[in-house]
Every structure is written in C-alpha cells, then in structure tokens.
C-alpha cells in the first residue's frame, strides 16, 4: 500500500459522504472502528441543525423533521468552516423541494428561524443616531443612501409563523397552526442595540419595498418614488422621512452617504 495523502483523503471522504468502500483496503485490519467516523458525520450535522430550527422541529414532529434534515445534509455537504452556517441553504431548499414545496408553511418557518439566528449573533456595528439625520443638509437629501446593520434581516413569508415559533421556543403548546397570508408579508428581525435582544415585526407593503430598495443602495429620492406608489404624491416624502426615522430609532442604520458629500 502506498497511496498519496490526497488519494487517501478523497477515498476517506467518499466513504463518509457516499458510503464508498475504496478506503477500506488502506485501513489497518480493514478499519474495524471506522463506524465511529461513519456515524459521527451525519449525526453531528443533524444535531447542530436541530438546535437552530426548533420551530420547524415542532411543526414537523420528530420523524418528518429528522428525515427532512437527513435529506438536506445529503443534498448540501457542508462547505462551512463554522457549523453555525450549516442551515444557510435550508429555507431555500425547502421552498423548492419536491417534498415540501407545496406546503409553504414549512419554508416560512425555516426562513423565519434562520433570520432570527442571524439577528442574534451578526457582527456588531456602530449605529447612527437621529441627531445625525438632522445634520444632513437639504441639498444632500435627494441622493442620500443608507447602510444597514448586519443584524437586520428580512424574509418574505407565506404564513404568519411568529406565534407558533414563540410557543415552540418556550416549549409550550402552540394555540394553533400558523395562519396563511393572502399575500406574502415581509418580516424584519434585528437586535435591540442596548439590550442585545432579538426583535421582529411584520412590515407594511410600502415599508417593505422601501427598505428593500434602501438596502440595495437606492437614494432617498428613489425611496420617495416607491412610497408614492402607495400614498398621495405630496405625502410621500413625509412618509419616507417617517420610515427613515423609525429605522434609525430601531437601530437599523449604521451609515449615511450622499455621493461623497461631507457635512
């Protein structure tokens, strides 16, 4: 036996991922305890995901939950350095999967939980206060753009899963199943800057669209135009300014810029 390091690693990994046995001939005595590695791989990944998706676990029950996670782990071998990110693809995969694609409540729950996890431990960043908005000169406003805190995240949900999620987290019986929305609703989750507690709320349609545009780098003028589609044209600027104030007060905004203008 004289296989190279890279050859042995490829064969070893193929056994863990696909159950292939080419490595066995290279193991001393055929590797009688290889099962310790075989079992560890999937079990560990599923265990980590279980901690991240308690609401989904309650929603699906043990059997469906674990078989779904097992399918997911097979579909998405980890490319993450930290196991923290293993669930990254789960909401999107559920939404498009053959098994759960027709039951959007499942993807809604996973997306909601993932968003809350992101809000909990996203990197810290220095917020701007309302006073800094007051300092922006009038000529800068039209081209003003915003940078948002990494802990702020949004998801579009087909079901209102929040009450069910809270009950599952508290290990209480939910009052009932999550309720379907007539139209998808955007939720935002963020971290309260002082208490460092995760907070979340649904957004009105105009706020959702304005926030989406603002996070993509849209100017204040552009945001006013979006808001104008939902209100009287002459009230749009007031509504947009009001939204901005709420965002700043909530601890969502970390930067203002107007094409390099300084004030």
């Amino acid at each position, binding site marked *: *036996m*004289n*296989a*190279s*390091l*890279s050859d*042995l*690693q*490829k064969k*070893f*990994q193929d056994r*863990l*991922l696909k159950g292939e046995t080419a490595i066995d*001939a*290279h*193991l*001393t005595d055929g*590797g*009688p*305890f*290889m099962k*310790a*590695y075989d079992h*560890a*791989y999937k079990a*560990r*990944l599923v265990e*980590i995901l279980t901690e991240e998706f308690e609401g989904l676990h309650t929603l699906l029950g043990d059997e469906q939950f674990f078989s779904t996670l097992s399918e997911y782990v097979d579909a998405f*071998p*980890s*490319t*993450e*350095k*930290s*196991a*923290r990110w293993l669930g990254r693809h789960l909401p999107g995969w559920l939404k498009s999967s053959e098994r759960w694609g027709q039951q959007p409540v499942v993807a809604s729950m996973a997306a909601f939980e993932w968003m809350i996890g992101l809000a*909990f*431990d*996203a*990197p*810290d*960043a220095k917020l701007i206060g309302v006073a800094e908005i007051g300092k922006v000169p009038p000529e800068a406003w039209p081209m003003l753009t915003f940078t948002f805190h*990494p*802990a702020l995240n949004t998801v579009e949900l087909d079901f209102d899963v929040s009450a069910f999620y809270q009950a599952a987290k508290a290990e209480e019986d939910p009052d009932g199943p999550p309720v379907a929305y007539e139209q998808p609703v955007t939720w935002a989750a963020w*971290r309260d800057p002082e208490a*460092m507690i995760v907070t979340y709320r649904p957004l009105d349609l105009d706020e959702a669209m304005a926030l989406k545009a603002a996070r993509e780098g849209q100017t204040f003028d552009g945001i006013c135009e979006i808001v104008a589609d939902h209100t009287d044209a002459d009230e749009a600027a007031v509504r947009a300014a009001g939204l901005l104030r709420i965002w700043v007060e909530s601890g969502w905004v970390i930067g203002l810029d107007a094409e390099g203008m300084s004030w």
Partner: protein
Amino acid sequence: MALEGFGLGLRPQHFPDILGDDPDATAGVDWFEIISENFINVGGPPLRNMMLVRERFPMVMHGVSLSIGSTDPLDMDYLAGLKALADLVEPELISDHLCWTGVHGLNMHDLLPLPMTEETVEHVAGRVRQVQDYLGRQFMLENASTYVTFEEDEMTEWAFLSAICERADCNILLDVNNIYVSGFNHGFSTDAYLNGVPAECIKQIHLAGHEHNGDYIVDTHDEPVPDYVLALYEKAIDRFGMVPTMIERDANIPPFAELVRELQGVRRIVEERRTMVLA
C-alpha cells in the same frame, strides 16, 4: 505573561455563573479556553459575553476547522478571521488539531485521521510554518483521538507528532485523554507516547471524558475525566512538569460549579504530586 495553572473550556450556558456577582463561583479557575470558530465573524451577546470574561481572565484560543493536514489549500479567509479574533482576544496560546476536516472544499466537521508518513510530516510542517508566518506567532497542534490507522503508516503517532513539531518549530497541546483513547483503540503503549514527545514543546494539556464501547472508545467529552486518564495525567506531569491544564466538556454539560469542583480535584493531584517529589 505566560499561561499558568488550571482552566476550563468556556461554554455559553456558564456565562451567568462566570459573569455573576459571586467571585467564589470561579475559585480555582485561572483561565478559559474558547473555541475559535464560535467567535469568528460574529457579534451580539456571544461576543460581548466572551469579551467580558476576557476582561477578567487570561484566554487561549482553540480551533477545530483549520484542517492543517488537508491537501486542499489553506483557507486564507478563515485564517484572516482567526487573526482578527486573536487581535481582539490577545490569547496566550492558539491551537488546532493535528488532523484534516475535509477536501474538495467540503468540511466533514470532524477531526479525521492522517496517514503517518514522511509525506504527511512534510506537508503539515510546511503548512504550520505558513500559519505561523501569517499569524506572526507560534502555533500549537493537539493530538486528536483516532479510530483507524492506515496501512501506509511509516511511524508511531508520537514520532509523527514530534517530527512535525520539530520541522515546523511549533508547540504541542497534549490531550492526555486522546492518548488514552487512541492507545486503547490501536493498542499502543501510552507510556511510550509520553516518553516519545519533546517535553519542551508541551505548552498546554487537555483532560476529558469519553465513551467506552467495549472494543473501542469514542472521544465524546460528555463525562467527567475518568480515574485511569487522571493516572496517565500524573505520569505526564512527572515527565513534563506542571503544564497549564484544563478540562474539556462539550456534551452533557453539567452546572458550572461541578466543573469547578472537578478542576479543583485535578489541582489537588498536581499539588500532592509536587509534595511527594519534594519529600
């Protein structure tokens, strides 16, 4: 300042005890070890609490994902994160395992065994040097528990570990439990292991518990350190002197006070040993 005394692995469920009002809660705990990956590119409560602990205690950083033995290129994004964390935490020591965790861009999230060959020694030593150059400081490798060995092996595990440390000019985090576990699984002499590693390179010791499955042992870190691992630890300190020592507990995690008591037991062993030697 060099690391001294006895430590524990920092676990989130113990933050309230460590950061609470009772200073006796941490009596006999000289330092903490963090899992590096848990604090790379994160903020919020986990980072804030860890840094509050850091204000009061020396710390060491212990990684699980460097994959020093992999034939994939070193992950420079990961190393950048590790370096940024080290700049923040200013740890006394930084370590990871002598293992690999995946190839072809994948991570098995497990500490996988390396064939103990001259090719691997050369490969790993070169990468440790790269890591040390990048971090601007010495690095430590920990011996992992293993459940298989390879037909390709050309040397013992202690010769393998020693050769890498010599060639890379790095240090060793000696896990006494892992020596016991691997020794049991592969039938090697744990005494020969202790005698076969360079004493001057051993800068930290891990103790832990494990799961006996009859014909093999799995390194689960879910039980107190068993007496026969402590007996091997006594031999280790007889040979290496007092090396900063800690208990790792990663599953079935007990109340903080229980770990503190267990650590005090380890301290007593060292102190009794020392009195014996002096007498």
